[in-house]
């Protein structure tokens, strides 16, 4: 039918017009922003790739060489600048993405300030090269940068530097997404990186290679609510001291919690974090002597004995009404924190960062006015004592757990800069120097203070004891920052948090790093941790006994051929052992 044909032709025409319009728009946009592989983000005038490359070729002996890293930031950045300038590069850009609680903005601003410091060195040495840093985002959810990195790497759109939990290293390193910085670190091991705490290098090393630099770390103290323990006739400081000495184990904690509840001093005995926070609970496993390592470095080991005892403690706590059966479903803002700060539990298995969180968020109900408000530093100190996570049994040591945040560099770092394929070694080195400078002692100290994390290097810890430095922070005098943008961002946070009580707390908890455990960098750990979380939920709710839950974990491992091949199960459920 002729009319049908006409309709068809018109439809084809419309589609063709759409395609043509689309192509025109794409072509115009494409001119402004070329595809990533050949994408110089800097203006063409400043990046004469075509001009720069042939010049050295014509004058063969003049072809610049990139000198090896010396371990001196000033010397190295000037050498790199000379090399890049010889290729006509005068501006380089990096993208950074970080995440965390609202006070942890150093996880992006650290790199911005690092660029400003490197630029200052370049300027002082008469170099033209300038380093720009673009902030992709500072995300609220801690894993957001890692997830986005994973999605955007195949599209070559990932951030060049990300600040994320160390536990992503194994996954990304296996995929080839991360820059292996072992050689760079070796060059700096005796200079800028010499005072990093030794225990943290394990968190950035995967299969013998280094893929990141530590950014911060933390400990997870057991908070002891003073008023509650005093009400039941205990001395909280003495309890804390004896926990650290290994004299009070989980059996005694159980008895104290029971006593507190019987005497009506608090509704609950022990509360802990929930949901995504399940890594905290693996402290029980370590406290009962469990370990994930063994003779074969390729394997992940699971000690059934420690796993069973962990689940038995959780089971007993919930059955005795000392821990809520639905703990894993409690609401952070409505239930968990208010219960802790209003003294309705004897113990709280928390993290160091809660110390300042209670000072900035309104969890506390003022007994006089009945209104919600945050606590003052003095009140936090008055309300809480703290110790390590108690040992499981006599003869074992108390523990804590750290999940360091790290700076990772993309394997394609600097990809948007001119002539990337030829110059990528120089771009990678600048990325490395950026994270080295982002970890300057003063920046680490400021981050630790404002976000209540434990510093990753000795020099920062020392600076945190310097009264002059602290006074500057407390009064908002942030002249240590080269970047005005960064100084402005920190001024209010610093005034709010640089309180002597908070700094004293961080100093007092730094010893915990000697007792810390870092969960293994093994691809099988995350799936195993997810199974742990399910098992804990089952025993808390009484849906499984500790034996059944242990068996459940083992069955889940056996049911997954990959996990079964990677995990070596050791030992058995202990006979005749009971809790409490």
């Amino acid at each position, binding site marked *: 039918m002729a009319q049908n044909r006409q309709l068809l032709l018109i439809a084809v025409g419309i589609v063709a017009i759409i395609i043509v319009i689309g192509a025109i728009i794409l072509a115009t946009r494409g001119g402004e922003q070329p595809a990533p592989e050949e994408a110089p983000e800097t203006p063409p005038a400043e990046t004469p790739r075509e001009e720069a490359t042939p010049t050295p070729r014509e004058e063969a002996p003049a072809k610049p060489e990139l000198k090896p890293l010396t371990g001196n930031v000033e010397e190295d950045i000037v050498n790199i600048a000379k090399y890049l300038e010889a290729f006509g590069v005068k501006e380089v850009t990096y993208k950074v993405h970080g995440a965390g609680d609202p006070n942890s903005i150093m996880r992006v601003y650290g790199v911005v300030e690092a660029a400003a410091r490197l630029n200052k060195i370049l300027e002082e040495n008469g170099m033209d090269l300038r380093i720009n840093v673009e902030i992709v985002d500072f*995300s*609220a959810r*801690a894993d957001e940068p890692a997830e986005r990195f994973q999605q955007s790497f195949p599209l*070559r759109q990932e951030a060049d530097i990300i600040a994320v939990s160390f536990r992503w290293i194994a996954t990304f390193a296996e995929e080839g997404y991360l820059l292996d910085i072992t050689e760079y670190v070796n060059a700096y091991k005796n200079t800028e990186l010499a005072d990093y705490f030794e225990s943290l290098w394990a968190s950035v090393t995967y299969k013998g290679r280094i893929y990141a630099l530590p950014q911060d770390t933390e400990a997870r103290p057991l908070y002891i609510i003073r008023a509650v323990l005093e009400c039941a006739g205990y001395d909280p400081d003495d309890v804390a001291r004896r926990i650290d000495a290994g004299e009070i184990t989980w059996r005694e904690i159980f008895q104290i919690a029971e006593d507190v509840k019987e005497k009506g001093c608090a509704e609950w005995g022990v509360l802990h974090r929930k949901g995504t926070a399940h890594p905290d609970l693996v402290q029980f496993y370590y406290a009962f002597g469990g370990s994930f390592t063994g003779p074969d470095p390729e394997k992940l080991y699971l000690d059934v004995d420690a796993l069973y005892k962990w689940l038995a403690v959780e089971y007993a706590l919930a059955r005795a009404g000392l821990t809520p059966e639905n703990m894993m479903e409690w609401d952070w803002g409505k239930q968990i924190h208010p219960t802790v700060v209003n003294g309705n539990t004897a113990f709280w298995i928390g993290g160091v960062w809660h110390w300042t969180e209670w000072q900035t968020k309104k969890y506390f109900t003022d007994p006089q006015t009945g209104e919600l408000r945050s606590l003052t530093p003095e009140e936090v100190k008055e309300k809480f004592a703290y110790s390590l996570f108690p040992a499981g049994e006599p003869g074992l040591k108390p523990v804590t757990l750290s999940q360091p945040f790290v700076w990772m560099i993309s394997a394609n770092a600097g990809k948007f800069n001119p002539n990337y394929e030829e110059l990528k070694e120089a771009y990678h080195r600048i990325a490395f120097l950026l994270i080295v400078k982002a970890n300057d002692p003063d920046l680490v100290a400021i981050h630790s203070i404002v976000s209540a994390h434990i510093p990753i290097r000795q020099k920062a810890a020392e600076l945190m004891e310097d009264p002059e430095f602290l006074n500057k922070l407390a009064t908002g005098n942030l002249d240590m920052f080269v970047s005005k943008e960064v100084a402005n961002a920190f001024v209010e*946070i610093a005034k709010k948090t640089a309180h002597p009580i908070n700094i004293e707390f961080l100093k007092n908890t730094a010893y915990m790093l000697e007792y810390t455990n870092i969960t293994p960098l093994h691809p099988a750990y995350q799936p195993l941790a997810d199974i742990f979380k399910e098992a804990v939920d089952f025993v808390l709710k009484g849906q499984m006994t500790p034996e059944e839950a242990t068996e459940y974990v083992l069955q889940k491992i056996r049911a997954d051929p990959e996990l079964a091949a990677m995990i070596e199960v050791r030992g058995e459920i202990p006979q005749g052992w009971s809790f409490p």
Partner: protein
Amino acid sequence: MAGPAGEVLAATVSRRLKIVIALALLTASTPILLTYGLLIISSFSENMVTDPLLRDLSPTLSNWITFLQGRLTYAPEGLERNVVEMVVVTLVVALGVAFTATLVSLLAAYSISRMNFRGRRVFTASLILLHAFPGVALIIGVYMVFLSVGKALGLLGNEFYALTYVILARAALEVPMATWLFKGFFDKIPWEIEWSALVDGASRVTVWRKILVPMVKPGIAAVLIFTFLAGWEEFIYFYVFLAPLGIDSLPTFIEEIVGAAEYYQLTIVAAAGTFYLLPTIIFFVFTQKLLLEAYSGGLKG
């Protein structure tokens, strides 16, 4: 009983029946109303309101101010997230989906309704089947197409390409249902109207454009609203195709702050949720009659 008295009684009974039905419906929908109501009220309170009698309400506008400023930190400057940009991105996708799906389905529905071609019956029947595929189930395939087309055109990583792709891919999911709805509208228009125009010398396209399309205007409005809401409420396509390029949108931003509820006030999350619900609420309040009629078998033009 006859006469005026009987009519009065019948009217009373029916009024009573209506009240009973209304009460029953109200009771059944109370949990939903309460949930949405408390969410909206909480966004104007300093703490989450969980008491239906609102005894724990403590009024404030700070949640809205904080959310609209995109502030996630105490920092006075620098790290605010651009909520306006997120709204624009979400809006562009939603509008793009609405217009693309409506245009394509208007043409498709007309051919199915009025033309005879091989496989028409099977095609019509399979329309509903196509609609049954949720977007998330197709995501791997859609991603593969995204990669291969992007590579072939050298556009991988191009923001405009990603945005266009999301609009087209999302619209494709809406086309089957919209076509089905439009077919209902076209079927109800008497053939004689079109026939008389054809006799007067109008072409098929003129008939479609000048006579049929104006007659299904209420249907177009309904489909535009449905497809707009589908685009607005989309999450997975925003997350997979736009977020990796650093393009923030409302759904991904809300997911992010919900995921970080440990750090952020739930009242701010409530403000974000309420803001995100606004178009849905507005459309359903003002156009519910139109939408219900559209779903129950077409409208009279």
